[in-house]
């Protein structure tokens, strides 16, 4: 363990390497000036520049200098340490240097990419290099510790992404805990009748996977459940899951549904969430016939028993005695080594665009509602009908509701053009109505997607390019009476159009789940400003997060269709499997340590440590840190009133000298 007494001995030999990063840095920073300054800094024995320090020849420059004995510590001035710190540390280790005798100065993200003026950019680069050199003088050789990886995995969210990841992991022989908060898995896909572009039946391709999840010996499925606690770190997470009472014993229920028949409510009376409010359900229900698990659930908010007004015919009729009104919430704890988040998306709330009349005019629907209408198992048995039960003769589909709009979401939701085509086809097929698509741009990249668009054009669907101004019931001519009038500029013709229709479908965009921020906090990951979970790198690490061992799959990371969600789920599973196969993870040696001479034994640190890693040496009455338990969170260091606690890689000396390095220069 290092200690601050170990001051650098004056014999430190620092190598400084300035990277051009092509023109990324060199285009804004006078590299040679920085090299010249670096040469003059105390302790520096070598200062060099190179086009790409991260390349093999770049790394070799450092390795050779180490081997020649010219340097014993290294500063690289290049990009963010998130990008290449592991690269350079690895290069040093290969040349038998200690990888922690290293400091990076970020002169790309922090300088060249964000500074216009070359002079200022060069000045700032010099200051950062000076700081890194001053800091690295106080670095100590450290060693990493290894801990084993628990081979179990937690998957949160049982939409198509979570299902696919779960099956992939389970088929590879790993133990999977799948947590879904609804009473059934399936996510959005379970609500659709057909899927674009092939128009294959959604249930036919999804339900076999759902049953496979339920039947798989390696998968523990917890529906109607929430993750409520996450502790630990990559390879060794401790998870707490809350199983909400469904008042039906899952192991006993055979899914005969007789309890639902027997309920004192003869007909559905309450909002049916699965049918997005288009139908009513009873207090005891299954969301849909292929729900998985096919186990009834009792909603205590609406069940009469909970207001003491019911003789429980549901319980009487159940031969398996599966109904249990005394069921209590249960907390289970499991250990896993990796986590895949697949919590999906929510659709945009169409009433936020008041001018489209959602919630005001009964025949204005969202696309998700129409997915239920066209579904053979939906509230109308697959008939597309108006609020009055009649078939529409004309239908308008408005694209980009809540997407590509500075007033709501600027991004494109990516799936709406395609599902609008799908719905146009299905609506036309079921009703023979005239269908009008109002679009801004048709976006149909994808295998077979453009061809599907072509097919719809030939089917006689109307396409009008123009963002709809409003949906109104204000009639100007007799043929507009009793209709919904779409007002839009037809930008191809250059005219304002009024088109009267019977039904309007709003192609609502995708948004992050309303609780995405809570979830990201719990799993210690980040969100983009729109609320999507943030991947480690948009191109090169699209399913990893900044927290090791936590992976992303599906629409929780951004708008995505089913093929992309499944591909990503497979990738997330592969990443988790790779982690398990390696079998161990190396931990940063960023643990805390105590300088006895400053410790008064006040125990502040002991009480505050979230990992119970601090004990008291009763003889000396000072604190001691158990390095195996310490996770390097730094809480004790901040709390220590006398500065006795220090953290490796972040000692006071290192930080103060880094600051001094900048200040001296400025």
């Amino acid at each position, binding site marked *: 363990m290092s200690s601050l007494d170990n001051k650098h001995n004056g014999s430190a030999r620092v190598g400084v390497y300035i990277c051009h990063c092509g023109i990324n840095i060199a285009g804004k920073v006078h590299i040679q000036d920085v090299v010249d300054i670096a040469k003059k800094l105390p302790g520096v024995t070598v200062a060099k520049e190179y086009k790409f320090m991260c390349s093999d020849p770049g790394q070799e420059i450092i390795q050779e200098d180490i081997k020649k004995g010219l340097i014993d510590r290294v500063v690289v001035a290049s990009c963010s340490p998130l990008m290449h710190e592991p690269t350079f540390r690895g290069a040093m280790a290969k040349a038998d240097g200690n990888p922690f005798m290293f400091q990076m100065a970020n002169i790309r993200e922090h300088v060249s990419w964000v500074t216009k003026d070359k002079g200022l950019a060069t000045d700032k680069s010099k200051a950062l290099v000076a700081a890194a050199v001053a800091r690295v003088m106080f670095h100590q050789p450290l060693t990493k510790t290894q801990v084993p990886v628990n081979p179990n995995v937690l998957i949160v969210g049982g939409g198509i992404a979570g299902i696919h990841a779960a099956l992939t992991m389970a088929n590879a022989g790993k133990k999977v805990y799948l947590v879904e908060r609804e009473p059934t898995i399936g996510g959005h896909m379970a609500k659709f009748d057909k899927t674009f572009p092939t128009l294959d039946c959604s249930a036919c391709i999804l339900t076999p996977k759902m049953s496979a999840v339920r039947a798989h010996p390696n998968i523990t499925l917890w529906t109607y459940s929430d993750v409520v606690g996450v502790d630990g770190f990559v390879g060794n997470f401790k998870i707490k899951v809350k199983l909400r009472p469904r008042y039906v014993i899952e192991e006993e229920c055979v899914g005969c549904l007789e309890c639902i028949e027997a309920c004192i409510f003869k007909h559905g009376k309450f909002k049916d969430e699965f049918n997005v409010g288009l139908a009513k359900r009873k207090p005891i229900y299954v969301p849909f016939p292929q729900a998985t698990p096919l186990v009834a659930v009792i909603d205590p908010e609406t069940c009469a028993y909970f207001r003491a007004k019911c003789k429980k015919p549901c319980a009487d009729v159940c031969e398996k005695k599966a109904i249990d009104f005394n069921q209590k919430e249960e907390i289970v704890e499991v250990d896993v080594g990796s986590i895949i988040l697949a919590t999906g998306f929510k659709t945009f709330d169409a009433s936020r*665009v*008041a*001018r489209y009349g959602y919630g005001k005019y009964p025949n204005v629907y969202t696309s998700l509602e129409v997915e239920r209408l066209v579904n053979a198992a939906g509230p109308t048995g697959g008939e597309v009908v108006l609020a009055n039960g009649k078939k529409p003769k004309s239908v308008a589909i408005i694209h980009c509701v809540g997407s590509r709009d500075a*007033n709501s979401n600027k991004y494109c939701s990516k799936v709406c053009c395609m599902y609008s085509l799908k719905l146009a086809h299905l609506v036309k097929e079921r009703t023979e109505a005239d269908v009008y698509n109002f679009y801004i741009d048709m976006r149909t990249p994808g295998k077979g997607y453009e061809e599907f668009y072509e097919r719809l054009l030939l089917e006689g669907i109307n396409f009008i390019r123009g963002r709809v101004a*409003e949906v109104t*019931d*204000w009639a100007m001519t007799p043929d507009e009476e009793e209709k919904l009038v779409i007002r839009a500029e037809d930008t191809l013709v250059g005219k304002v159009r009024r088109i009267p229709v019977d039904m309007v479908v709003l192609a609502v965009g995708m948004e992050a789940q309303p609780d995405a921020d809570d979830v990201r906090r719990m799993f210690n990951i980040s969100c983009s400003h729109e609320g999507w979970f943030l991947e480690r790198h948009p191109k090169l690490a699209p399913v990893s997060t900044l927290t090791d061992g936590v992976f992303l799959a599906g629409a929780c990371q951004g708008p995505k269709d089913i093929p992309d969600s499944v591909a990503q789920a497979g990738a997330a599973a592969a990443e988790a499997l790779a982690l398990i196969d390696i079998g161990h993870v190396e931990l940063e040696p960023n643990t805390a340590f105590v300088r006895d001479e400053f410790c008064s034994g006040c125990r502040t640190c002991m009480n505050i440590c979230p990992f119970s890693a601090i004990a008291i040496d009763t003889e000396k009455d000072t604190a001691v840190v158990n390095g195996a338990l310490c996770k390097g969170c730094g809480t004790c260091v901040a709390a220590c009133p006398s500065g006795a606690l220090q953290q490796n890689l972040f000692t006071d000396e290192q930080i103060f000298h880094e600051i001094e390095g900048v200040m001296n220069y400025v």
Partner: protein
Amino acid sequence: MKYLYYPGCSLKSTGRAYEESALAVTEALGMRMDELEDWNCCGATNYMSISELKSFALSGRNLSLANRQANNTESVSLVAPCAACYLGLTKAKRYIEEYPEIRSKVDGALNAAGLEYRDHVRVRHLLDVLVNDFDQRSITERVKVKLAGMKVACYYGCQIVRPYSEFDDQHNPTSMERLFKSLGMDVVDWPLKTRCCGGTLTGTVSEVGQRLSYILLREATRRGANVIVTACPLCQFNLECYQSEMSKRFNDSVHIPVTYFTQLMGLALGIPRKKLGLHRLFVPIPDGVESPAAGGAHVLA
């Protein structure tokens, strides 16, 4: 909150009735609203289209006068009942505060006149103040008159909510509806409430301008309205003054009173018609619609 009243040109001329009723109503609510001393043109339409900077300087002067008159207090609202003044002042404030280049030029002009620009003066439309600074129940309790059979179409026009929606929804504002419900009146659902009244086209290309006004009036009538309330002098003028001409032009009989929202509000609060400038209307509110209703009992019931 200190309120200063910015009349602008219309409220001293064609929109006199707006000033009369606005002052009467605010007085009845016990709200003190001193007129801004030495105010000048808000810099609307013409200035704005030809030289934005001059327009910003004009509004900037009004805003700095307001700051001076309020002794530099932090919470002062400059209340503009005219929609064009409201928009002109709001736009100037935003541009001056957002763009340092504009600010330095405006400051230069103001400094030459011994003034300086300060950020904290708020620009408010009178509707915003009456709906959001007053508890609506307390307004209801001040209702003295029931207006039998009055069905109100609330008209916002363009400038109050667009492009800036500082206090209400851009496409479906509802402040006025809420206010008139608190006053015990029926309001009609009229989705055209933010559509163009014709603006200055009524004077330049009258056929187009009048057609736009006519669409509004016809649809309000069809939806059962028998009075339209507005919050803008130009809207009021366009919708009210050409009704007989429109009747001829579109072969229809157009006849519906169009008042400032403060006029109809004042009537409900029991303020005499004359004090509200209601005698100035071309299409009058019929006599005898008022009946006593102390303390808004019929609304609260």
